């Protein structure tokens, strides 16, 4: 029961970032349509990941969304700080560096998503195996000292 609750809470948490992204999109659409186009195009990895995310807890899309936002938020702040929002938006839209940074950030998120869980699983397995080896050594010593036969 508690496991189900935890799952629900985590699904909610993983959805939170996407809600924030939508909220930012709504603010951006009010400020400038060019800025909105920039934001929408920048968030394409997130949009795709939402469609292709088969994970029970939607971790893939949440991770990509986070990294997507990390990549896009500095540009949105830059647009917000500029004197001419539309101009700044058009400028950033046409800049290759902008897209390299934004999509690079999303790609990094995806890479981390695939590698970090494996690393964590490996870490735990290794730690358990070390424990097993320790117990086996103790068992072997006892067996040799007292002539205990293996059960199997």
């Amino acid at each position, binding site marked *: 029961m508690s496991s189900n609750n935890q799952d629900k809470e*985590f699904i909610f*948490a*993983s959805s939170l*970032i996407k809600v924030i992204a939508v909220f930012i999109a709504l603010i951006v659409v009010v400020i400038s349509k060019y800025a909105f186009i920039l934001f929408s195009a920048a968030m394409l990895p997130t949009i795709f990941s939402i469609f292709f995310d088969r*994970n029970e*807890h939607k*971790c*893939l899309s*949440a*991770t990509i969304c*986070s*990294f997507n*936002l*990390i990549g896009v*938020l*500095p540009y949105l*702040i830059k647009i917000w700080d500029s004197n001419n929002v539309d101009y700044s938006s058009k400028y950033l839209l046409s800049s290759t560096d902008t897209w390299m940074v934004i999509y690079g950030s999303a790609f990094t*998120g995806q890479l*981390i*998503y695939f590698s*970090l*869980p*494996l*690393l*964590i*699983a490996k870490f*735990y*397995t290794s730690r*358990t*195996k070390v*424990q*097993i080896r320790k*117990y*086996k050594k*103790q*068992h072997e010593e*006892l*067996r*040799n*000292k*007292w*002539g*205990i036969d293996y*059960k199997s």
Partner: protein
Amino acid sequence: MEQGENGIIPNQGSNILKNTLDFPRSDKQDTVNNIFKIHLTEEIYELSNQFCKYYHASNIDDKSIFFAIVYESSFVVPVTVIDSLYKNPVDGVNKILSWSVVRISSDNVERLVVIVNSYNYNNNLLSYIQKNGSFSLSSNEKIIEKITNVITELSARGIYGYNISPYNILMNEDKDTILNLREFINSYPYFNEKDQYIAPELIECLKSSRRTKNCKQDVYALGVTIFYSFSALSPWEEFSEEGEYNEQRLDEGSYKYLTRKTQFSKRFRIFLNSAVHDSPSMRWDTKNIYDWLAKKKDETIYDSPNSTNKYTIGFNNQNYSNPKSLSYAMFRFWEKANKFIKDSKFMLWVAKQQFSNETIASIKSVIDARYKDSMFDTNGISIYSDQKLTKLLSIIDPNGSLRYETIAISAESIPETLQYLQNSKRQNFFEEVIKIIKDKNWQNYTGIYSPGFLEETKGNEFHYLAERNNNKLSHKNNERLIYSLNPYLPCLSSMLNGKYVNNIKELLLALDSYAQKQPNNFIIDRHVSAFIAAKLDLKDNIKPLILLNFPKFTEHHAIQSLSTINLLHQHEPDIKITNICKAISLELIKLFDQYLHNTEFKKTISSKIESVAEESSIPKIIDIFSNQQQFIDDYNGYYQACKQANSLEEKIMTLNAEVSNFNNAFIILGQKTTVLASYILCLVAIVATVI
């Protein structure tokens, strides 16, 4: 009785069952006392039987021919009789020239061998009469005199049961006179005899159980032999089965039946009537025969009291006219007899017999007694319900044998009977004999000529040994009872390499020799244990000396062997038992290798045993185990270690299961961690950008 040191108790007050004779031993194989060479290729099949084999033997010096009797080990050889006849030969009995324990090369086993004069066994009274016809009365009187002399002399030595029959009376080659009675030491008394020579009081007995302590049976056999010698008649051959002849002679009386078709002189009838009288107490003894030979006995013939009885009784579709014949039939049809005695006609028949009032009262009280498992009392003698018929038969046939269901025996022959039954694997009969002993059935017989009679001292000894074997020992050990009752029976263990072992000293030497040949398989068997217990008169089984708190050790053959050998060596401390010590040490090392746990402790104990074994000292071996605490520590430590090992095994199993089953959980955990990390990074990025 208090048990002494090492479980030994003093003798039970008599030397009845003690082995007091030293057996001569021959060093040379197949040679008796370096004088007589046994020719093993020349067996005399006509004389051999299941208890011994006859071979030709010759004097090494003058090549004269003799007979060698080579006994089977399982046969209870009448050693005291052999020794007596060897030291003091009896005129009229084939002479024993030598005897000793000899290793026989054909099977490499030591056996008791007796050398007797050779004879032409085909030239005997039976064959002579078959060929030449009967003897005259005067010739018969010579035979009677010679055999009576034999009976007299042997009876004076307490030797009875001479297998008297025409076949066993040897004839002189060139005269019509008898030479000798054949040696009668080749079987249990009358084992191989035809029924007609067996006295009526012994007729129901097992073949192995016909030994008595009086000469009346031999007088009967002499009487029948002389009847045949005088008449050349054999009325017993008219019957297809011996049982039918027995019924007939018991019903009519032996004398009447033998003489019914032929007229004999009065003098001969006087002899025959008294020599083959059915009642042993009425039958003549040797003194009467001498009187008859001296013509001092010419009184009128008296009939057997029962043979004139006109009152018959029907049982099992036959009529019986006297108590003896009815008893014989009741014993043979035991189950039917149990029902028959409840019939009122039985008591009516009893009333018409020549029984005393006291006897009739006894019969009535036995019949009226209820069948029950508990004891009831009749005339002051306590008996069980399953003894009802046994008791009844002893009353109506007071000269009979000890009868119990399917078995009848003479009381004197109980020791050899038990050995014979054990050897022939007749366990049911064996148990019945034990029952007879435990019930002291011989107390029902007071007449000294009755086969059921037994002296009180001997009876008590038998009873004591049987009771101890069945009640006090942790398990029944029939061998032990047999060795106790038969002091001259050699140890029949297969681990003695065919050695003839008759005392503790010989046993130790034989065991040491066995240990030398088979050091890896030194296990004291039941026969050796029983033999020791009997020879040392141990009250209980041999108790283990060491590690008493550990049943798995004390019940092990190595520890039992150690305890047994220690006991033996205490009795014969001068004998070197180097090989036994080594063999036992090997067995102990095997034992501790199997049962001790701590490897270090195991090594220590093994090395100690190995070093002490070289010193050939049983006490030093025992001393190794004096401190039981280290064995207790080993035991406790092992179980503590087992617990720990189990706990570790469980932990390992749990962790192994985690590794395989929870790999997915680690992935999910990683994914969630990734999401969390990305959120934190995102937050950091926002804050950094804003600032």
